[in-house]
Structure formats: structure tokens, C-alpha cells
């Protein structure tokens, strides 16, 4: 019998037709849309005089560009308001389910999909956002698309895609103290570079991955795109099923049993061939932080910034340009450097477990004076739980400022911007120049490291503090 990978199984089940010497016509089970990458797609549908083919397969929420204060009031920024209004108009016109600002399940699209149980094993999921890879944590094929493709999915529920190559990354063993799934993924990206998985779809496997909670798995799959991968996925198991059981859109009763029986078949066959295989040891991984302007530029918090030895030409120039932007030099230790902001949030680490972790560590402490600390829950549901569990109180007592759900300072489209030249240690996923505001200097780390930095005011190894 043919041996297939998990990726093959799901992909092949969704191909309606293979175009000779071309891409596959690929069927999409679920489509998420938000206010920033959908308006032009809807506009083009109108220009073509066509509608939305299967509205029930699309779900919408405004997240990228929404304010995180006074969400119940009219959005002040005119252009942002127009985008959100367009989304409302389009959803009403075509009958698309919208989780609007202030509603019970409003939030970052990649946080609410799993929370609602919309995201399920074996599905194909796309969204006009590169971190759609998050949903791969459930054993789904999920990836980001451009606005032209958003239009295709709305119009036909399909896109034209060539099948990616397959890579398996296994992490074996037990994680050390103070090491989280964020450190795993920052470690992998630092090892293989920000372009190291371009052209591939990655399956994460191994005992260290299997031991992770669903939320921790989402953090890993989320950042697949930061090594260039089309997406990442993890085979569904009992942890997955337990997470989904009882969720609003999860199957119920006899349907549930049927679904689980099918989901259990969704794993890579023994002996299936990958185009590339990598194995890492959990014991080698320590708390990580980035020092440059792409997520591949990461080191352990106790490490020093690499020298330019062995680099030449545009490689070296680009590296030095990046360090110059960050205000760092080769050979610098990062530990002990002063920080101005901490940001806990985003679709990478804005879930309840992340907020619990931060709260647990800052409990009874005060943030350092030089630090401005923002916590932005990934969704209303997360915000609600954080209140109910008393986490908000703990965080506010420690001097953190809680904001309302949205992408916020992850991409700084709204007012949540880190000022030029300031250092932010952030639980988000991108440290690109200007990502958190023009001139902002971002260092990516886990929620634990961010909590440690908040307390000490400097780059800190969380294992030294807690």
C-alpha cells in the first residue's frame, strides 16, 4: 500500500482537478476574512457581477485595524472605520457570519477560529493573512493567501495551488525549565533561517511536540511562515479531540464519534517519504530572543550577537544594516540590555495560557519603572476568562495595562505603536523594521521571558527570576 504523509492525505482529498503542467484546483473547506485584505476582493466580485458561492463556508471578524480602547464607540480613524464598515456591509449583503467588535466571539481571526471549534482536523483553511498556518495545529492544511485568492475563494470556494514539498521537523525529549513552545519555534527558525523552509509544508512531530497543549501547538504552527514555509501542521491526537469537544461548531453526538474515528486516520504512515527531515533535541533548547530584523535572527537570551565572520557582499551589508537599525553590534551580549516596552498579545501568544503564564510570574511583583507593559487578549473570550480567573487584577496590580482584543501592536495599524527608537520585547511573531511602529525595535520572545523583562526592565533570562 502507498505510504502517505498527513499533508498528502488532506491535500489529495481536496483536489478537484490537476491542471496539466499547472497547479491543482484546490477546494477550501473554511475561509476566514478580516477587514484589511477583503474589501478589494468584494469590490472585484461586484465588478465581475458575481456573488459569494458558499457564504456558510466563510467567517469574518475585524481584527487588524481596530482600536483596543473604547471598542463600543465609533472608530475615530476614518480609513479604519471605513474598512470595518465595508466588512459589515459585505457580510450583511452576502450572508456571511460576522463576529463584530464587542460581540462574544470577537477577536483575532486565528484565535477565534479554534475557540469556536470552526477549525477541525482534516480541513483546508485559508485566510488573507500569512499566520493562517496557526490552524495547522489541529491537523488541518491552513495557509495564507493574497487578496486575488480571497476573491477566488469567495467566488468559487477554490484556489489554484501547486502542491508544496514536504518537510518533517521532529523535536524529541523533554523541555527544560522556563522553555516554552515559543522558544522551540524561535530555535528552529534560528537554526534553519527565515527562508529555510520556503517551498515546503512542514509537519511537526516528535515527543516534545506531542506533549504540548493545543495552544502551545498553535504558537509553533503560527510561526511556520517565519521560516518561509507555506504552512505547518501537527497530527491530531487525544489532546486535539479533548480541546474540540463541546466547542460551538464541533460535531455533536453520533457525528462527533464519526468525526473522531475519521480524525484518528489523519496521521503520516510509517515509512512515508518527506522531501526533507530535520530532528532537534528539546534538551538543547533554551529561552530564546531575537536581536535583528527577521525572525531567523534569534539566539538564546544568554547568548551574544553573532559576528560577521564568514559573511560577505550583500549578505554582510544586510546583516549590519539590520543590527544598525536595532542599535546593536556584533559580539554584544543581549542579556542586561534596557527595554522600554513589553507587549503580550497577537495570534502567536495572546491566548489564555499565555496570559496565565505571565500573570503567574508577575504575581506579587511590580513592573520596572522604565517599562510600559501592554497586555492585549487575542479575543473577547480570552479577555473574559482573564477577568474571571482574576488574572487581570494580578496584572493591573503589577502595573500592566490591559487593552481590548485585536492585532494591536503586533502590526501597529491602529494607534498601538511603539515609538521610534524604543525597544519592545514582544510575544508576537515579527521583528521586521517598523513592524510595531516606524523606527520601533522589536525583540521576539516567549511570554515567560517577556514577564521577566517586565519585572527587571532589562533583557532577562526567565530562569534567573522565577
Amino acid at each position: 500500500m502507498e505510504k502517505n504523509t498527513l499533508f498528502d492525505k488532506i491535500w489529495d482529498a481536496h483536489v478537484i482537478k490537476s491542471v496539466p503542467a499547472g497547479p491543482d484546483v484546490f477546494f477550501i473547506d473554511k475561509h476566514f476574512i478580516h477587514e484589511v485584505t477583503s474589501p478589494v476582493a468584494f469590490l472585484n466580485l461586484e465588478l465581475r457581477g458575481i456573488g459569494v458561492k458558499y457564504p456558510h463556508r466563510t467567517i469574518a471578524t475585524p481584527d487588524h485595524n481596530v482600536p483596543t480602547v473604547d471598542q463600543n464607540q465609533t472608530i475615530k480613524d476614518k480609513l479604519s472605520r471605513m474598512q470595518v464598515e465595508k466588512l459589515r456591509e459585505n457580510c450583511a449583503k452576502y450572508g456571511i457570519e460576522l463576529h463584530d467588535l464587542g460581540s462574544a466571539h470577537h477577536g483575532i481571526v486565528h484565535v477565534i477560529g479554534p475557540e469556536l471549534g470552526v477549525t477541525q482536523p482534516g480541513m483546508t483553511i485559508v485566510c488573507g493573512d500569512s499566520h493562517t498556518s496557526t490552524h495547522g495545529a489541529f491537523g488541518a492544511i491552513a495557509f495564507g493567501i493574497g487578496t486575488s485568492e480571497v476573491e477566488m475563494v469567495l467566488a468559487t470556494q477554490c484556489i489554484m495551488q501547486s502542491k508544496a514539498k514536504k518537510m518533517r521537523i521532529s523535536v524529541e525529549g523533554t523541555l527544560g525549565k522556563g522553555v516554552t513552545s515559543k522558544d522551540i519555534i524561535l530555535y528552529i527558525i534560528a537554526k534553519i533561517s527565515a527562508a529555510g523552509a520556503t517551498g515546503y509544508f512542514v509537519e511537526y512531530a516528535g515527543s516534545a511536540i506531542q506533549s504540548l497543549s493545543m495552544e502551545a501547538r498553535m504558537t509553533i504552527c503560527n510561526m511556520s511562515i517565519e521560516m518561509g514555509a507555506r504552512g505547518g501542521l501537527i497530527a491530531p491526537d487525544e489532546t486535539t479531540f479533548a480541546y474540540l469537544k463541546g466547542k460551538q461548531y464541533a460535531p455533536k453526538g453520533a457525528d462527533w464519534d464519526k468525526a473522531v474515528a475519521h480524525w484518528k486516520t489523519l496521521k503520516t504512515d510509517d515509512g512515508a517519504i518527506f522531501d526533507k527531515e530535520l530532528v532537534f533535541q528539546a534538551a538543547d533548547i533554551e529561552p530564546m530572543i531575537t536581536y535583528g530584523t527577521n525572525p531567523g535572527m534569534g539566539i538564546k537570551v544568554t547568548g551574544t550577537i553573532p559576528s560577521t565572520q564568514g559573511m560577505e557582499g550583500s549578505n554582510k551589508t544586510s546583516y549590519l544594516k539590520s543590527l544598525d537599525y536595532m542599535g546593536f553590534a556584533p559580539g554584544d551580549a543581549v542579556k542586561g540590555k534596557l527595554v522600554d516596552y513589553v507587549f503580550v498579545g497577537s495570534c502567536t501568544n495572546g491566548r489564555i495560557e499565555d496570559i496565565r503564564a505571565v500573570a503567574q510570574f508577575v504575581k506579587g511583583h511590580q513592573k520596572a519603572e522604565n517599562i510600559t507593559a501592554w497586555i492585549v487578549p487575542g479575543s473577547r473570550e480570552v479577555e473574559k476568562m482573564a477577568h474571571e480567573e482574576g488574572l487581570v487584577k494580578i496584572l493591573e496590580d503589577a502595573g500592566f495595562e490591559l487593552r481590548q482584543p485585536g492585532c494591536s501592536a503586533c502590526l501597529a495599524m491602529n494607534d498601538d505603536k511603539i515609538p521610534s527608537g524604543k525597544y519592545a520585547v514582544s510575544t508576537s511573531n515579527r521583528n521586521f523594521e517598523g513592524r510595531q511602529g516606524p523606527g520601533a525595535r522589536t525583540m521576539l520572545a516567549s511570554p515567560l521571558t517577556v514577564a521577566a523583562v517586565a519585572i527587571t526592565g532589562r533583557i532577562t533570562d526567565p530562569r534567573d527570576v522565577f
Partner: protein
Amino acid sequence: MAYDKFTVLQSTAVPLPTENVDTDQIIPARFLKATEREGFGDNLFRDWRYDVEGNPKKDFVLNDRTYSGKILVAGKNFGSGSSREHAVWALYDYGFRCVVSSFFADIFKNNCLNIGVLPVTVSPEFANLLFTAIAADPNTILEVNLPKQTINLLATGASETFDINQYKKDNMQHGFDDIDYLINMSAEIEGFEASR
């Protein structure tokens, strides 16, 4: 929407040898607030092109009159990061019809093909040769020939072939897009959906 046809393009080129240029640099997030597709060219490479007061930065290549043209020759791993198609709209709107690099990020490349900006992947050696040639003579002409799948330096005759799948090539040459194709498949799609 269907776009311009692309067959043979002869043009001078703009060099940008920086590596790992992400789409946040090509078009920063704060300029993604429009609900239409026009006008993104003004903000192409916004934060590299202008200082905080909005004055052009002299050392950035788009502000250097020496270089112009419809072809952007870019460093390795161009277009990484966000899936925002606005990055390609901005390149297109500014006047680029072709981007050359030794390595493209996946989603960016797809977006280019969907908009009608031709992404041409060359070897690292050929990319270096192009950077050197453009630096030596900013008026040097590149020819990108889609039917033949070649990129040539006209002055020296240096040339390399590039890959593109036949389907995308046909689309670019005729100005078709994927939606036209998919809409013609409605019956098959409906059959598939009904079986889910």
C-alpha cells in the same frame, strides 16, 4: 481582475541588493487602510524612501535619479513575511512589471503572478552579474522574454533561462486570471461541494 498581457519586456532596471526584504518594508501596515486597489505606489518602500517628516531619503535607490525602469532587481529572499497583496499592488502601481531575485518568498510570488507582475528567479551568480552591470551602467537594458523564458543583458548578451509553470505562463501572456478558469469549472466544483 484580469491584468496587462506580458510577453517581452525591455527596460532599464532598479537595483535593490538588500536581502530578506519583507512585505512590511515594501508597504508598511499603516498604509493598508484603503478599500480600493489604486494609489499604493506612493507608499512603496515608504519608510526607506522618506524620513519621518516626509522628506525623501537621498541614499535610497528610488530617490536616486540615476536608476529607473520597469524591472526591480532585488536581493535574496524578497517578499517574505505578510501575505498582503498590497505589496505587489504598490510595485505595480509604481510602475514595476517584473521583479528579479535569486530567491522569492512563496506567497509573494503567487501574488505577483495573480497581479501580472512577473517574478523571475535567477541564479545567485546571475543576480550578482546584474547588480554589477547595472552599477557599471545604469542605462543598461535588460530583456525579459516570457515566451522564451529568458532574461538577457542586451549589451553583453549574458543570458539565463527561468522557470514558470505552463499554466501561469499562458495566463500572463494572455492576461487571463485564475477566476476565469475556476468559474468555467462551476459544475465540477458544485459536484465536489455537494459530496462534502
